[in-house]
């Protein structure tokens, strides 16, 4: 079956003092229609760059060095700029963490969403406006018809994010990329938006690439999870398996450092140090400098991703059969 989106061998670099510096290395995944893949990691892991690379929106002077991105079987990287523009929005949409930065402050939100529809479809202005009202209703904006005349600054953070979701869905995309869609929101509003995304996804069958640092949100929305560290995917597994039985030492550390899982008064388990910057990535396994169980081989060789069973894999020498013997 053709995946809704398929990414393979994606590498991105930025110019550095000693030539080009890789920030993303050999990242791949596929998402089927109706499926949610969460890409999890801390800041600097490369998860947002992965999202931007899929949209071909890597900010200059960054560039995609290698790899392929296919949307329902259609290769995106060879497309011309105008071709890519029509894919963006129509087949592939994105919502960002901070809705304010992606909405124009001087155009009403209704006009902005209508514009997105008119750009991709030949419908009358009036039909587009009507669809905007219906979209606003479907994303739970109260008083939808009146709210189409509002400017972004007149709306709360939660309503702005609903407008962004309405805009992203206005062209009925096959794949939606959601980059930290609820991080800027209060927890009660976040719960509303998560519920909305779940309902919409069930109704439309859109494939979602969810970028987040929050394993709670992964649990709420994802079917499968890929964990990123320092520009690479280090573990992948279905949601339940990842949360109940993480295998990579980094994933284990992430879960153990969550205060919600600790007993009050007990020390939290720490991952020592910080995520290294790209120009500071160690040789061998990039997690080796912070890993409690790293051995000599980890500092010398790069572990490849290996299957750990059906549908899950990890890049760690300690998980290989010969390790420890």
């Amino acid at each position, binding site marked *: 079956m053709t995946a809704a989106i398929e990414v393979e061998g994606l590498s991105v670099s930025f110019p550095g003092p000693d030539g080009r510096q890789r920030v993303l290395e050999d990242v791949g995944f596929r998402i089927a229609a109706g499926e949610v893949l969460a890409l999890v990691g801390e800041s600097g892991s490369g998860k947002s760059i992965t999202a931007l690379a899929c949209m071909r929106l890597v900010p200059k002077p960054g560039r995609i060095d290698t790899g392929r991105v296919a949307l329902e079987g259609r290769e995106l990287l060879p497309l011309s700029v105008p071709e890519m523009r029509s894919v963006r929005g129509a087949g592939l949409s994105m919502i960002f963490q901070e809705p304010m930065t992606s909405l124009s402050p001087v155009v009403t939100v209704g006009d902005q969403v209508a514009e997105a529809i008119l750009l991709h479809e030949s419908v009358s202005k009036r039909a587009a406006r009507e669809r905007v009202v219906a979209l606003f209703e479907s994303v739970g904006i109260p008083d939808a018809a009146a709210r189409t005349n509002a400017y972004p600054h007149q709306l709360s953070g939660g309503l702005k994010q609903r407008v962004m979701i309405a805009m992203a869905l206005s062209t009925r995309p096959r794949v939606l990329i959601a980059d930290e869609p609820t991080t800027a929101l209060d927890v009660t509003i976040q719960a509303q938006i998560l519920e909305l995304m779940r309902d919409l996804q069930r109704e439309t069958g859109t494939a979602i690439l969810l970028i987040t640092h929050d394993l709670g949100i992964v649990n709420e929305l994802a079917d499968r999870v890929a964990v990123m560290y320092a520009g690479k995917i280090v573990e992948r597994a279905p949601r339940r398996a990842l949360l109940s039985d993480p295998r990579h030492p980094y994933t284990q550390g992430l879960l153990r450092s*969550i205060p919600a899982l600790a007993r009050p008064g007990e020390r939290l388990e720490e991952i020592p140090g910080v995520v290294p910057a790209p120009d500071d990535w160690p040789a061998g396994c990039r997690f080796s400098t912070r890993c409690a169980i790293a051995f000599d081989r980890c500092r010398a060789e790069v572990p490849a991703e290996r299957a750990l069973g059906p549908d899950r894999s990890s890049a760690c020498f300690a998980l290989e059969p010969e390790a420890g013997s």
Partner: protein
Amino acid sequence: MSEVPLLRVDGLRTWFPIKRGLLRRTVGHVRAVDGVDLTIREGQTLALVGESGCGKTTVGRSILRLEEAREGRILYRGTDLRTLEPKAMRPLRQKLQIVFQDPMASLNPRLRVHDILAEGLRSFGIGSPGSERTDRIAALLRRVQLDPAAMWRYAHEFSGGQRQRIGIARALAVDPELVICDESVSALDVSIQAQILNLLGDLQQEMGLAYLFITHDLSVVRYLADEVAVMYLGQIVENGPTARIFSDPAHPYTRGLLEAVPSVDPDRRRARAAVLGDVPSPADPPPGCRFHTRCPERMPRCDQEAPPLFEVERGESRCFLSGPR
């Protein structure tokens, strides 16, 4: 309990004027803090929890008199800080310190870490200038687990977690008794957050510090607070010991907050949007119970009468359902 608490806040009101027109006439007030009582005991942690705009940050700033309250008492070991002349306030400022959310915004980028930490020592005349102060600064940096050599570098050269350690060292430099932590770990990645939470716990044990921990993050609260006060639109809606608040929340808003937090337990995929809509403007709070516009358990009287804080088992709740039936 007969002992005088370290800090008691009594009927605190901090309003901000809304000015309009050419003459900048005051046309109303944002009632950021509107009648708040709090008690913090020596060596204990009180968490002040709420969503953005609830007034929790203003409470912290009012205690330090960074904002001038219009009403209420701030009793530090029984002395009302609001009645003190600036000169009499000075020695007490030493006892009350604050750590902000964004250490980058609160640390002067033109100063070396040494100068940032020496500032407090100098202004309170701690240690003699020169090598004695430098030794103290080295000890402070060691205490927050930074290399003493860090004192000769600038704040911008450090990562977010390291900067937060510098912010904590600055607060500790003058030997405080109460540290107000305003979203001090909210901007950090989870693995770094665990390091800082452990550090705060260690320092509390070693130095007998009390914390007022201002946050929106309930998982952190459950982990570190002895007592919790939940704030909504300028008022405390519930308070009590942490274990009781989490196991048996009395106020519908507290319940809504708890239900909205995504869990990482794969068997509990359940974050519910029990609290609907947005927080109303604190410039124009709803009549009656301020929460009634979003309350899933609202009754006819709730938009008419404002509920007082009713005593519940171990704590208080501002809801008619907690009052006498």
